[in-house]
Each structure stands twice: as structure tokens, then as C-alpha cells.
């Protein structure tokens, strides 16, 4: 195992040092004192397990392709953005937009995450052990998002394709547009069970529901776009001065 003390390395060089370790064939790398640096493990490729002992900043393990990257602390926004394969394991909490545009691999957060987790995701699996903020899985184009805790509002807003699994009892009321609340299938529940077993979550697939893109009876996406709603009942509560049936000032 290789230990790297990031306190002694220029922040622009840290990824290069990690890459060189992987190139040399090192399979297990531990990095201490990373002190919330941005872009750590960005674009990292190969076959290795890389562990950061404290917290990391923005874009952690973005464009990751192959390695297992573990963060023992918290991570900032955009962790795992555009991730291709491998694993990104976050032991604590994250900022927003985690797993944006992820195309493959597994991204696991044991704590809570902010808004827009899995924004535009195209593949792969994201598991959130805690709660997720608003717009989880917004405009996703594939992949699987699993939220074990509570969801924020507008979950699944305008998903094109993909699935969001939730056991939040209020999930149906919190859904965004263009999605439906559906029962989980036996196969899907089994898939979740194996993921929970692999990552040590005490949960059962059968407890979950699925949020899916809305389809019409022919199986085609029933995509509805925003249109201003002209709600005359809504406006009726405001007093209008006309139609008072008499003259102003008349008793």
C-alpha cells in the first residue's frame, strides 16, 4: 500500500502523483491531508483503490474510469460528474449536483446529498444512504438512482429515461413533472437487494417504489412541456373594482 501525504504536495500535482502510483502498478493508495482540494482524482483511470482520509472539494473523481475512489469525509459539489466506470464511495455527506451526467459505475453516498443529484445522468448507479435535496434525477437520460432517506421536492423532474427508487412515503406528492409513481418489479427489487448487500445498507428492495418517465399506452414518452396556467379561480380572490353593480361612493 502506498501512502501519500498531500500536505507536502502542490495541489496541482496531487493527481499526477496518484496517476504515477497507479502506473507503477500500485493497487492500494491512501492519501491524507487532502484538505478539501478541488478536482482530486479527476479523470483517474486504471485499476486501483484510492482512499482519501479526509474531505475533498469540487469535482471529486469526475470523469472517473476504473478505480475505486473512497472519501472518508465529506465532498463538495459535482462529485463524480461525467463518471464513466469504477466506484466512488463517499462515507459522509455531499454538496449538490453529485453524479451529474454520470454514464457508468457506482456512486455511493452514505450520508445526505444536496439538490440535483444525478442531474442528466445517462447510466450507472447512484445510491444515497441519507436524504436527497430537490430535483433528484432531473432530466436524466438513463441509469439508476436509489434514495434510502427522504427526497426533496420535484424528484425526477422531466426524466427522459432511467429509474429512481425511493421509499419516502411522501415521494408521490413530491414528484416533478413528466414522471409516474410505480410499483417495483420483483427483478428490480432483487437488483436493489444485491446492491444493498454489496454496499452494506440495511434495506430491502421490496420497500421501494419507482419513479419512471411517464409513458402513454403505446409505450411512448408522454412529455408535457411547461405552459403558463391561466387560473381564473386563482385570480378571483383579488378584489376587482368593476362590476360592483352601482356607483362608486354610493351607499
Amino acid at each position, binding site marked *: 500500500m502506498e501512502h501519500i501525504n498531500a500536505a507536502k504536495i502542490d495541489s*496541482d500535482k496531487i*493527481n499526477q502523483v496518484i496517476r504515477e502510483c497507479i502506473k507503477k502498478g500500485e493497487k492500494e493508495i491512501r492519501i491524507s491531508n487532502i484538505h478539501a482540494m*478541488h*478536482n482530486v482524482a*479527476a*479523470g483517474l483511470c486504471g485499476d486501483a483503490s484510492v482512499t482519501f482520509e479526509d474531505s475533498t*472539494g*469540487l*469535482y471529486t473523481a*469526475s*470523469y472517473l*474510469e476504473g478505480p475505486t475512489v473512497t472519501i472518508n469525509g465529506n465532498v463538495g*459539489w*459535482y462529485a463524480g*460528474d*461525467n463518471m*464513466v466506470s469504477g466506484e466512488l464511495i463517499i462515507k459522509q455527506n455531499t454538496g449538490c*449536483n453529485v453524479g*451529474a*451526467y454520470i*454514464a457508468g459505475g457506482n456512486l455511493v453516498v452514505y450520508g445526505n446529498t444536496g439538490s*440535483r443529484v444525478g*442531474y*442528466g445522468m*445517462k447510466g450507472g448507479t447512484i445510491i444515497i444512504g441519507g436524504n436527497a435535496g430537490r430535483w433528484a434525477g*432531473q*432530466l436524466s*437520460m*438513463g441509469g439508476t438512482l436509489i434514495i434510502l432517506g427522504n427526497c426533496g421536492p420535484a424528484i425526477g423532474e422531466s426524466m*427522459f*429515461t432511467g429509474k429512481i427508487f425511493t421509499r419516502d412515503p411522501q415521494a408521490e406528492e413530491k414528484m416533478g413533472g413528466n414522471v409516474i409513481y410505480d410499483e417495483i418489479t420483483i427483478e428490480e427489487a432483487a437488483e436493489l437487494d444485491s446492491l444493498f448487500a454489496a454496499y452494506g445498507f440495511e434495506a430491502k428492495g421490496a420497500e421501494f417504489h419507482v419513479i419512471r*418517465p411517464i409513458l402513454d399506452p403505446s409505450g*411512448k*414518452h408522454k*412529455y408535457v*412541456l411547461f*405552459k403558463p396556467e391561466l387560473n381564473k379561480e386563482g385570480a378571483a380572490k383579488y378584489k376587482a373594482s368593476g362590476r360592483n353593480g352601482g356607483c362608486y361612493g354610493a351607499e
Partner: protein
Amino acid sequence: MEQNKQVKIVNPEKGTWNNIVLSEIDYKAANGKYRIRGCGSPRKVPNFDDLVILPGQCTRMTIDTYREDCETRVVLGKRFAKNPIVLETPIMIAGMSFGALSKNAKIALSKATAMTGTLISNGEGGCLPEELENSYRQSIQILASRMGFKKELLFQADMLEILYGIGAKPGLAGHLMGEKITDEISKIRQIPAGIDLHSHPRSGDAFGADDLVVKMKQLREITNWETPIFAKIAASRVREDIKIAVKVGFDGIILDGCTAGTGAAPVMAADHLGIPTMPALVQAVRTLEEMNVKDEVSLIVSGGIKDGADMAKAIAIGADAVAIGTAAMIAMGCRVCMNCQAGQCAFGIGTQNPEQVAKLDIDVAARRVANYIEAMTAEAVLLAKAAGKTKLSNLEREDLRSMTLESCAMTGIPLAGSDLVIGQGFGYTASNTL
């Protein structure tokens, strides 16, 4: 006296309530929604035709149009990138998606770049392998939708473009109507076939300029500082946007004016969002000069560029290159019917209908686009030589004069035949005598 004699009455031309306005109202009354149209805005806006180039006479020696050389080669993206792009002519093919355009059209355009030594941008929705194989130099757009985008494209790109806006519909994202979302396009973009697609409006991996600074470092790290990274910006608050792009650390900027084309845009967006290409370019150049980075940050301008005169004038104002979209489509046979959104192009360009696509002969279309690029380059060279330049890039704003008060005020370039500059000026010594 004879009453009620039949006399032909001629009413004044309808002003506001002309036939175009009537048809737009009819559409909304019938459908309860706004109209989507192809090709961008038909509005008349101040443009490069409002400028003229001053030829050399006693003050400048002209260069022989028919026998002497004038260099057209251009280097783009040299600010930080290790491998800036070298093009034989400062004309690139703008980003137009496979989806908006047919596969044959995309391949023809990329082949044309190989014939002329220039660059093509992929547009939204991924990059066709055939486009990549055939292009001379390839720019890859990183859009908010990230549809069809793959990590490997970062390494296949000769240039990267982070897209913030499209001149024809700034503030909005891509539109691709259901007619054009075939099974193949649906597979590449990972979206359901047949839906009317309105792409992701905001990028999910950078919210604002501070994030972008970090994002830029991420991309530099992944591309090993080799690939030039450009920002594509629609012309809006040009001064502020350019300042941010420079601070973020882009190698160059593609500035897209409101006369740019598109496969589909709401009529409202095309006609009423953004500012025209020519004044936007002036504002961009002014800003880069103020920031003292004009020589290092490359500037490509697009939006209605149609001939060598537009290109020569854009370069004289301070652009390093131009990008053409609609003009390249016209060279392939497009007749600007403004119905691209319907996906039924009789010429096999703005369609995914296999029978129509087959009508576009790739090699013939590629040759026509290459001819057009060559001729357009020759036109710009002709003007540059007449102005006494042995390099296209030596054209300068002092070679220009405005033909209208409006263009004079917008560009700060003196009115032809006078020293009159209205407004801010543009580096001229002429004083504002108004």
C-alpha cells in the same frame, strides 16, 4: 350627379398589422401555443454590409490581386493550450447537430473541411464516427444536455467548446422536433424516439463563474493542457460575458450573433433575443483590448456570415476567424425554406427521412461546400489585397468605414467620407463632432 361610382381605393400599406403578423396571430389563435420555426431570424438588423473597406491608393500600396500572395492561415487557441489549431483558412463550420442535419449532410460538411484544411464543430447530440473520420480538424461541444457526449471525445477533439448559448435562441437550449428523433438519434442521444426535444437548459456541472474556474482546471488536467478550450457564447451582455470567459481561462471565444441559424427555435426567441453579430463583435474586441488579452484570446464570430466581405470586415474589426452554418447548408443545396423544424427537407439536409437523406450526394455536397469555402476565402483575399495586405489577418479597423449612422454608432467606425464617429469610438483618433 352619379352616386356610388366604383372607384378602386388604395389603402396605405398595413403597418403593424401586416400579413406576417396576421399569420402569427392566426397560428396562436388556432393552436394556443407559440410557433417553432427553422433557420433563425429573418429580421433585418445592422450587419457587415453596413461597412465598406477602404482600398489602398496613394497612402497604401495595393497587392496584386492576380499574382501576389496573401496569407490566410490562422492559429487558434494558443493562449494556454499546448496544441493550438492551425487552419488553412479562417472559416470553420459551426456546430450543427446530427439530428438537425442528416447524416449525409454532416459527412459532407466534414469532408469539406478535409478538402480545405479547416475545422468543423459537431453540435449537440454526440459526434458521428463518420464525421470524426472525415474531418480535417474536429471541435467537440460540451453542452448542458451532454447528449451523446462521451469521455473519449475529450481525447478525440482538436478543440473543445463549452457551449453557453446559441445565437438564434440565446437563453434557450436545443430544440429537435419529434419528426427528426428517429430510432438512431434516440439511441445516440439516449432520449425517447418521437418526443419534441427541448434540451437541458443549464449545465449540471458548473453553476456560475466560480465553479467554472475549477471546472476549467478539471478539463485542463484531463486533457493535459493540450486541447484548446473555447467558450461558445450567444451575443447578449457581451462585455460582461467576455470578461468572465477570459477570467475563467478559455483559450478562445466563439461569439454567435442573433442572426445565427438553427434547425428549430421559437419565433419569439429567434426574433427578439440577443444582439446582432457586428456590434457584438465590436464589443467583444473592445473588451479583450481593455483586458489586454486581445492577442492571446482567439475570437471566432458567427451569425449570418455569408461571403468573403463579411469575413474580411469581421477580421478587420478584430475576429481571428468566422464560423458558417446556414451558408454552408446553402452551398449543399438548402434553399432556406425556414421549415427545417418539420424534418421534411426535399434536399436531404434538414431531415432524417431516409428517402430524402439519400437525395444528398455526399461527395457532390462536400465538393460544393469546399468550393464555397475556397471562393469565400478568395473574396476576402481580394478585398485584403486591395487594402494593401499580404496577410488576411493584417486587415484592421482603420480599413473600415460605416455606411450608415446606425452602424457608425454601433461600431464606432467613422462614417464614410467623414471623420464623424458617434458614441464611444473604436480606437480612432477622429473626434466626435456631434
